[in-house]
């Protein structure tokens, strides 16, 4: 077990190293210059700006310095914001993660429930309802869903009730988390419930379920101890990348609900050619993704003892 974890950690570091290297050189190939704006800057000032961010040195020297700083946990100073990249990421990640955790809890609990019920009551109205919800979740893009929620619950419901149940935008109060968490969680919910339904149906037809039934176990025990535990494996598999992507925020949901999360920086840093910020978001996201996948692999062992991690 320990050997497996160490092996995976070494791979993880190697992957990160390759990722940072690739991104470092790729972003330098992007056309344009971070300091060229609408108004002209004198060559002397341009040289000073390049020197301030270390861009006056040869690229390979910059790369070595960047790698060294990364090892010390220093991701540099953002060109756009003139402040520590690490600080920006940790501040905004807390917000994204807060929202993401709410969305995931919502998606997983409701998704598993809907999927399981749909499978158990296959062909019933429950089944149709669950799959209808899943269909909506998969097919309606989050920016449409977000805008619809704002309009229907934020604006119209407020007009009807006269009270502000669902704030349209902003961040800081519990109420403000409701609409974005729902909008963010719905597509994961759809994925989870569909996966859950399929795998539950599969499990319910297995011989061991029939055995359990013939042993005289109660319906509840069969479902809880035999069916659910076996059926949940595919859901756990998709949770790794889903958690990583939901936790780090999404540009769309954050911009619709005006939430100060990490999501926007993935997009704006590239647009602004903010090299340090691009590097920072990539290192952070890459690291988190690798970590989540590792956790999921380890979880397999606990949920399904048949999975041998050492092999």
């Amino acid at each position, binding site marked *: 077990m320990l050997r497996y974890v160490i092996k995976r950690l070494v791979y993880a570091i190697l992957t990160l190293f390759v990722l940072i290297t690739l991104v470092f050189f790729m972003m330098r190939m992007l056309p344009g*210059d971070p300091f060229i704006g*609408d108004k002209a800057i004198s060559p002397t000032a341009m040289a000073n700006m390049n020197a301030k961010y270390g861009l006056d040195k040869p690229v390979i020297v910059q790369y070595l310095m960047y790698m060294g700083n990364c090892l010390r946990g220093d991701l540099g100073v953002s060109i756009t914001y003139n402040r520590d990249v690490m600080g920006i990421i940790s501040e905004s990640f807390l917000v994204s993660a807060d929202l993401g955790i709410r969305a995931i809890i919502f998606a997983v609990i409701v998704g598993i429930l809907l999927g399981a019920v749909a499978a158990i009551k296959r062909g019933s109205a429950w089944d149709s309802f669950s799959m209808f919800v899943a269909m909506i979740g998969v097919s309606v893009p989050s920016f449409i869903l977000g805008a619809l929620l704002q309009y229907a619950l934020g604006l119209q419901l407020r007009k009807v009730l006269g009270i502000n149940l669902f704030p349209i935008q902003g961040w800081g109060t519990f109420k403000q988390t409701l609409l974005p968490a729902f909008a963010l969680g719905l597509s994961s919910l759809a994925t989870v419930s569909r996966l859950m339904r399929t795998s539950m149906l599969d499990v319910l037809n297995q011989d061991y379920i029939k055995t359990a039934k013939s042993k005289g176990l109660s319906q509840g025990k069969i479902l809880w101890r035999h069916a659910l535990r076996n059926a949940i494996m595919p859901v756990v598999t998709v949770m790794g990348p889903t958690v990583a992507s939901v936790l780090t925020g999404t540009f769309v949901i954050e911009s619709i609900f005006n939430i100060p999360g990490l999501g926007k920086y993935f997009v704006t840093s590239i647009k602004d050619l903010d090299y340090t910020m691009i590097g920072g978001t990539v290192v952070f996201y890459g690291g988190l993704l690798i970590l989540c996948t590792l956790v999921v692999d380890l979880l397999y062992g606990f949920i399904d003892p048949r999975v041998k991690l050492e092999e």
Partner: protein
Amino acid sequence: MKNRLFAWLLCLVMLLSVSAVAAAATNPNAGLGYYPGTSEKGAISVECSTMSVMNPFLQTYSTEFSINRHIWDCLVKLDSVTNQIAPAAAESWTTSEDGLTWTFKIREGMKWVNSKGEVIGDVTAHDFVFAWRQLLNPENAAEYYAFATVFKNAQAYYDYASGVEGAPEVMIEDVGFRAEDDYTLVCELENYLPYFLQYVKFEVMAPVYEPFYNEVGADKFGTSPDTLCYSGAFYMTEWVLENRITTVKNPYWWDAENVELEKINWVKYTDTNAKYNAFLGGEMDLIDITGDQRAMFEAEGYAPSSYQGGYSFYLYCVVDDPSRDISNKNLRKAISYAFDRQQIIDTVFKNDNKPSPSFAFGIAGVNTETFSEVVVAANGGEPLYPVNSNEELAKEYFAKALEELGKTAEEIDITFMTSESTQNELYSQVMQEQLRRVLGIEAKIEVLTITESRARRNAHDYDLFAGGWGPDYNDPMTDLDLWQTDNGNNHTGYSNAEYDALIEQARVELDPVAREQLFVECEKIIAEDLPVIPMYWRYEDFVVSEKMVDGYARLPFQAYNLIYTKLAD
């Protein structure tokens, strides 16, 4: 003596003439009962499009400057009603006979407060000296350092300190500003500058309190509310990066008794629909709106307001590369006449944008409200650029161009370089269609990222590229020196000795009317040579909730001035 009197008269004339496009706003919708605004008492929530940097000497965006002028006082400011220079941190000033030395009397009793609203020191002349030294410090790499180069020896010091090869040694003490005592600031200028006060009004010239700066350290200064201290009408209590800034009324400000507003929430949006919904839902008091949103407000009888920041939009043309068809002057004229500017505005922007009558916009005239009026009058009352397309003239110039280029219409090769955005792309498509219709040219469109398009623009590697310019100070020079041969913003390769000479003359001309005439000549030359094809003046629409009744201003050089906003009861 005569000179001194003249300098004073000149200042007076300039001040009086800047009667501008002004008048602080009164809400046209006050009391309608449609959008009562946010519920927090004494506070307003206002959209602010860019607020990435709050270190005053590193700021570059007009909306950042807007917050700046609410939390610091420069020596002088622009009045929120008249848009004229008015005393701020300096209560009075005098100039020497030659206009090169200015002495400012700093208002006594002004305080520095921290993000908790506690007094931490007195504002003195030394704070300006320190701030301007930071602006000129190459290690800070301030983009707008050039505002401090009006002072004697400042450019020389900057070059020396930046390690420019061959730059003679100049020390910071030799630069032309010093605190004679705590409340007397003396400035010596490098050259005569009739609009010098417009420079010290500029927000990057805000004071910085040295003991506080040293305490937080240069790296941390200005990165959070706690790492800044304030001397203006408000102070900052909260800053969530790229999301919102909260400023609270500063009771220690010298004119605090006239400030009714308790708090301003500056909110940034990336989604136009979200802020629209937020306004409708009573979560915002002031937002910028799109043409479509404006139509929706108007349909329900709610009047939007319009803001003129003085932004002039045009097409850059590369004129110094003979291998490009666009370097042919007659072709540029044909294109300019072929454009139906009003149709472009109605199709693409759907707002009050105006076809450019002249290049410079938002600048006051000497004896008229705007400089542009003088230009139009000098052109026989006609705008320099047609509102609708003039097909006859367009075809006439086109025929000449084809002859000079030795090409047929089908062989004409021009490309609109466009930075990516739905609106920019539509803008190019409409222009492309107009050229196709009037001249039979098949222009191409090339869509690039904004950073790449700027790099290509600076390298003169394009045919036509849509750009815009916002004035830095209230004088035609801010717009017209762009097309001087060596100006860093002249991305067209345009070089005209006559034009350069006119600008140089304007730099030293003391008579304001004669000086204005020099600028009129410049405008005429631009219209004749078309290194850029002026297209439209931007008017930005916004709506204000009924909570804000009066006293707020959105004017050229002050995108927001909300200090004296009056609220509904």
